[in-house]
Every structure is written in structure tokens, then in C-alpha cells.
């Protein structure tokens, strides 16, 4: 039952995103026969080292979506304090309200069924612009971001160019 509900909700979100999606965001199922695996693109926010880049990621939805949040993973090289080396994104909106591994997040920032794919992607976009130094997922990136902004920019730009085949 929840599976059908999840399917319905995902199709609805997909259609809404096709109709009108926020600037700099594209998202949809890799293949519509499986609505639980999505691919998405996030444009790097302007006036940040990510500017001009486009960063691909996958979203894997649980069978009980939207009760639980999807998992998001970048499928390109990323250099960001809140993105693990395997691409997994660490952001409060992707944590379910009952589960707070880091014990610092406000329940209101975490996942709830009123959130959506669109909101996740917007949050991730602003995360690219403003890393959260409380939840370091990539320690190297956290350190360099804190201590050496120039080197951080250089590494990020390198990733951005690589994704676009430059």
C-alpha cells in the first residue's frame, strides 16, 4: 500500500518538476518503469567556486517515501565539506526526524513528508554555496575550506571542469 502511495507521490513530483522546475535544477527517474531511482543535475551557484558547473547525482527513494527521505549521492568527483568521498551528501534535510546521527540538528530542518525532491535539491544547491562546518563529511575539504579558500576554489573548479569534460 505504501509502495503504491510512494509511486503516486513520486510520479506527481516528477510531473510537477517537468512542468516547472527551479532555475538550475533538473531531476527525474532514470527510467520511468522504476520511479524509485532518479538522476538529477544541480547547477553550481553563481559567485561560488562551483559557478558554471553542473553536478550530477542520484536519488534513491525508500519504499515508504515520503515517510522517509531519499538518499542522495553525487555521481561525479566532488570536493565539498559536506559530501563524502563516495559522493553521499550529508545534509539535515536528508535525515529522518527520528534519526539524528550528529545530535545537533534541529528537528524542523530534517526530513518530513512535506518536503520534496525540489526542496532537497534547492537545499543542496545552497549547501554548495555555504558549506556547513558542523557536519564535516570530507575532512580534507573541511580543512582546506576553512584554512585556504584559494586552494579550495582551485580544487572545486577542477571538479567542475572535469564533469563537463574539460
Amino acid at each position: 500500500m505504501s509502495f503504491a502511495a510512494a509511486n503516486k507521490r513520486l510520479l506527481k513530483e516528477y510531473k510537477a518538476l517537468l512542468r516547472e522546475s527551479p532555475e538550475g535544477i533538473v531531476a527525474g527517474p532514470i527510467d520511468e518503469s522504476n520511479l524509485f531511482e532518479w538522476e538529477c543535475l544541480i547547477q553550481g551557484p553563481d559567485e561560488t567556486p562551483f559557478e558554471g558547473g553542473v553536478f550530477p547525482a542520484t536519488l534513491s527513494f525508500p519504499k515508504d517515501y515520503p515517510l522517509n527521505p531519499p538518499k542522495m549521492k553525487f555521481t561525479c568527483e566532488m570536493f565539498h565539506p559536506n559530501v563524502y568521498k563516495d559522493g553521499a551528501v550529508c545534509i539535515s534535510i536528508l535525515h529522518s526526524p527520528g534519526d539524528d546521527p550528529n545530535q545537533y540538528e534541529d528537528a524542523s530542518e530534517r526530513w518530513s513528508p512535506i518536503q520534496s525532491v525540489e526542496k532537497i535539491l534547492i537545499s543542496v544547491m545552497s549547501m554548495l554555496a555555504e558549506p556547513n562546518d558542523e557536519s564535516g563529511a570530507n575532512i580534507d575539504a573541511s580543512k582546506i575550506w576553512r584554512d585556504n579558500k584559494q586552494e579550495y576554489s582551485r580544487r572545486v573548479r577542477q571538479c567542475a571542469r572535469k564533469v563537463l569534460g574539460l
Partner: protein
Amino acid sequence: MSQSQSDSTAGLGLPQVAACLLVGYFVFRWFFKANDPSGTAQRRPPPVDPRRLQEQTEVVRGMFPQVSAAAVQAELIRNGGNIEITTERILTNGFLPEPPAPTPAPVARRQPAVAASSASSSSTILSQYTDLITRYNLHSRLHEAESSSTLLGKGKAPATKSDRQLAHHNKRDDMILAARRRMEDMDRKARATG
């Protein structure tokens, strides 16, 4: 004078004893209380059925063979046997903390191997990424004129599955190509000024 002094000491005697007892009682309670939660936490595991725990551990390890069984069990016991929370933790952190010594013995030996294998697997993942132009086969479209296809107008979603897929792919490819053009422009400008 000496009379009043002895009086006062005698008068203070009882309250002092009472105060000592009271302080002693609270210290005792405090210790007791401080011990208590850990005591209950350690007493929590029994409600978890060992057979079920074993099954759940196998399920989780089927998905994440790199995580040791002991770590999975510890996490399952901690969260009351919830597989979802366990997988979530593995996916967000990339690992599970190894339980402290008492559980099984081989844990300590296995840990370095786990770290090494996860490190090597993540590095192979990194090198496997292909750029978006190759991934979506856009080489032929690199030199097209700008904004070639805006197939659908805003305001309605295509009605059929294949049209939706097409619309999604167009959007995706256009975004990639636009970004690539922009990045090349930025390069050109940088070269011109530098």
C-alpha cells in the same frame, strides 16, 4: 562565655550530623543515578531476539559486506532492531563504528582490513566517473547552435511515459551543453585577460 561555647558546639552537633547524613545520602543517590542509565542500557539487549538479530544482520551484510557483523549487530541492538536506520547510517557515514571489545573477538583484527577495502573501493569509484558529455553521449551536439530544443512550453507536463522521458532528457542535455558552453566562454575570457 565558655558555657555558651560548649552550648553552641553541643547545639551544632545534631544539625551537623543531620547535614552530613543528608549530603551523604545525596552523594550516594547521585552515584546510584549516574550508574543507573548505563545499567539499563546494558540490560536492553535481551528483548532483541538473537535469532531475529542474526537474520537482520545477514540482511544488512548482504547489502554492505564491507561492514563487520559485530558492528551491524551493535547498531541493530542500539536502535532496537531497525534495519532501515542501520542502512541509513551506513550510507550516510560510509561505515559503522566497531562495537567496544566485549562483543566478538575478531573485530579488532578485521577493522584495518575494512578501512583499507573501503578506501580502495572509494578510490576506484572516483576514477570510474565519466564526464557528462561522454555519459550522455553529447559529443555530436557540442557544436550545435545555442538552445536548440525547448521542446515543451512551461505549464504542462507531457501525458505519456515516453514523452516525459524525452522531455526530461532534453532538459538534462540542454543544461549540460549550456554549462559546457559557459565554461568554455569563461576559459576564453580568462585566457584573454591572462
